[in-house]
């Protein structure tokens, strides 16, 4: 029976081979699953920070690569993403924080097998302002921390002047703006200040939400922060690079660990991600960035389980993320939207990790097979449903 199915699967795959070849998928030796038609309906939930990119990816994938795969990603927030993943109401979760040991244990406990986590994109958090006189403003961790703890209250403060000898600084009152909703952007921003500035770590610490100094302005979502910046003459705030790019906000250069002021660009974010030391368990933060790297950067992780998926769904998960991480067009879209792709070496490691998805399933025969075998199982899984 298995043989019969395999033959059928191969037959079914033949017309699709042509389409797969024209996809320009040269480097997909690791998982050439695009040459067969997958059929699955996936749900994912989590971080809102990569949502524009994920939606674009899902749309292109469903239209151009696998019409039979229907993916629904809901940007409910990182916290809710982790919860829904642990409650197993979604096929994959997404967060701007990796799963800690406690969460991994909870996951293993709930599902009866290990969870897999891997990074998919990087993004920078930029310091944006509205005053055109300040174009090219340079800040370092200490001054940013002092601004947000209201120790520096005007732009012509000596600490800022020292970093910007060529700039004619106005004596406007600085109005720091923060996110009022809890958000991964705040987590990345405050993590940076906590690692770099001791007094900040003692007084405020890091987190998705914070007990900010009194007198600061809070904005709901990126848009609220942008309004806070634009409606206050001395407004200054932190937002995702992708949002700042879209909204056309002026952004500050930030001094990195090597003492170089770096402008937040796609290149400098990629440089930062390459500086990061990524351990085998993918639990890392992008700290102490030097070289050409922009120092305030965060990562988005995806979580899946090593068991319990229908084979069709598991194949679709692996195929989708492999496509997103390796397809040239998909990676270009990421860049256009202000997200930095993983480096080559990291991509290979991530794909190896990704393929652990569903590998410990009770019916493990197909998972370790080559691509051809996977296809057959995909057909089988689809038939059995």
């Amino acid at each position: 029976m298995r043989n019969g199915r395999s033959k059928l699967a191969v037959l079914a795959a033949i017309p699709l081979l042509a389409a797969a070849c024209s996809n320009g998928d040269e480097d997909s030796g690791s998982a050439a699953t695009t040459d067969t038609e997958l059929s699955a309906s996936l749900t994912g939930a989590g971080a809102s920070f990569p949502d524009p990119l994920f939606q674009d990816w899902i749309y292109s994938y469903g239209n151009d690569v696998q019409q039979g795969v229907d993916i629904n990603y809901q940007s409910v927030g990182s916290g809710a993403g982790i919860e829904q993943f642990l409650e197993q109401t979604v096929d994959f979760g997404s967060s701007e924080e990796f799963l800690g040991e406690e969460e991994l244990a909870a996951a293993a406990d709930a599902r009866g097998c290990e969870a897999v986590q891997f990074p998919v994109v990087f993004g920078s958090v930029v310091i944006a302002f509205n005053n055109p006189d300040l174009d090219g403003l340079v800040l370092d961790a200490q001054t940013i921390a002092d601004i947000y703890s209201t120790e520096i209250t005007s732009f012509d403060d000596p600490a800022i002047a020292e970093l910007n000898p060529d700039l004619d600084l106005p004596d406007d009152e600085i109005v720091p703006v923060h996110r009022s909703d809890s958000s991964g952007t705040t987590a990345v921003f405050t993590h940076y200040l906590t690692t770099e500035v001791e007094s900040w770590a003692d007084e405020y610490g890091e987190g998705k939400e914070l007990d900010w100094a009194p007198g600061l302005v809070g904005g709901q979502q990126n848009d609220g922060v942008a309004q806070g910046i634009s409606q206050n003459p001395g407004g200054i705030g932190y937002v995702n690079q992708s949002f700042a790019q879209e909204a056309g906000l002026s952004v500050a250069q930030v001094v990195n660990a090597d003492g170089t002021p770096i402008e937040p660009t796609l290149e400098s974010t990629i440089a930062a991600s390459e500086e990061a030391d990524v351990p085998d368990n993918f639990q890392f933060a992008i700290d102490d960035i030097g070289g050409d790297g922009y120092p305030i950067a965060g990562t988005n992780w995806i979580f899946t389980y090593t068991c319990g998926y229908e084979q069709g769904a598991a194949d679709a998960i692996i195929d989708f993320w492999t496509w997103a991480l390796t397809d040239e067009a998909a990676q270009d879209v990421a860049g256009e939207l202000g997200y930095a792709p993983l480096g080559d070496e990291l991509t290979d490691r991530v794909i190896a990790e990704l393929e652990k998805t569903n590998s410990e399933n009770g019916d493990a025969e197909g998972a370790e097979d080559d691509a051809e075998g996977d296809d057959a199982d995909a057909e089988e899984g689809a038939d059995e449903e």
Partner: protein
Amino acid sequence: MSTQAPEASAPEEPRRGSLSSGKGRLADPIFRWVVAACGTIVLIILALMVIRTTSEAWPVFVKEGFFGFLTGEEWTTGSSRTEITGTYGAWPFIYGTLVTSAIAIVIALPLAIMVAFYITHLAPRRLAKPLSYTVELLAAVPSVIFGLWGLHWFLPNVLRPFFEVLESVLGWFFLFEGPIRGVGYLAAGIVLAIMILPIMTAIIREVIAVHPIDQRMAAYALGSTRWEVLRKVVLPASFSGIVAAAMLGLGRALGETIAVLMLIGGSQSWGTSLFGTGSSMASHIAATFGEAGPEARTALMAIGVALFLVTMIVNILARVIVWRLGRMTGDAAV
């Protein structure tokens, strides 16, 4: 018909009715039970919500103490999955809810009475109908629209200049101390006032409209001005209806989430200046729920319980005030 009746938890009466006589007898008890069931559904839903949120929030109340939770000023979220490690004091949020609602009701109530009086008594017929439709239409505008409009247009173009004048004149008074940040308690309260205006106007208009015309005519005949008629004849007679309208408006203001969230400036501290930024209970829940882990969610549930309590207390206080006022003026108000 008679076979369905027992399902409505009325096994005895309907059957007896069907034995003794025809359909007419049966219809009454059935209707009574159906209506009673509908009435109790409200109570059951309310009870389920209170029990559920309270039991989920219990660990936070245990750690902070009930009054400690209500009066504490520090809110630091922990990230444990099993226990309560943070510090949870909800006072800044309670304060934000009370202040914004108070601003809203203080502005909206007189305005609603005036609008209603104008529509029913003064406006020319041609204008009265469209005007009352427009007010009702305003009630159908989703709150997120009020929030967006408030944040993007109303705040920078109208409120901020107004705040600046207010601060330059009354800046010595603690409620109007600078600095002005745009968003804050006052901005949220004023937009809330606009939001609760339609529902209050609609109710007050109906109440005033049924006021007997001969009383007003008698007052005019005695030489009263329009203001005197409104104040001394119409308002006292419509007092209970106006209070009901105010309570509905207040209820909406206390619980309003998204518009407040966009305009209050979302800080976890509080201050006495109305220009200051803060958070309301509902807005803080909405702002942090998405990213909340298990511990933070427990703490947000506790805010939910507190919000329920505050709403109840405010309502009871309002009833008591009305009752006392009613007794003083000799009007059977509520």
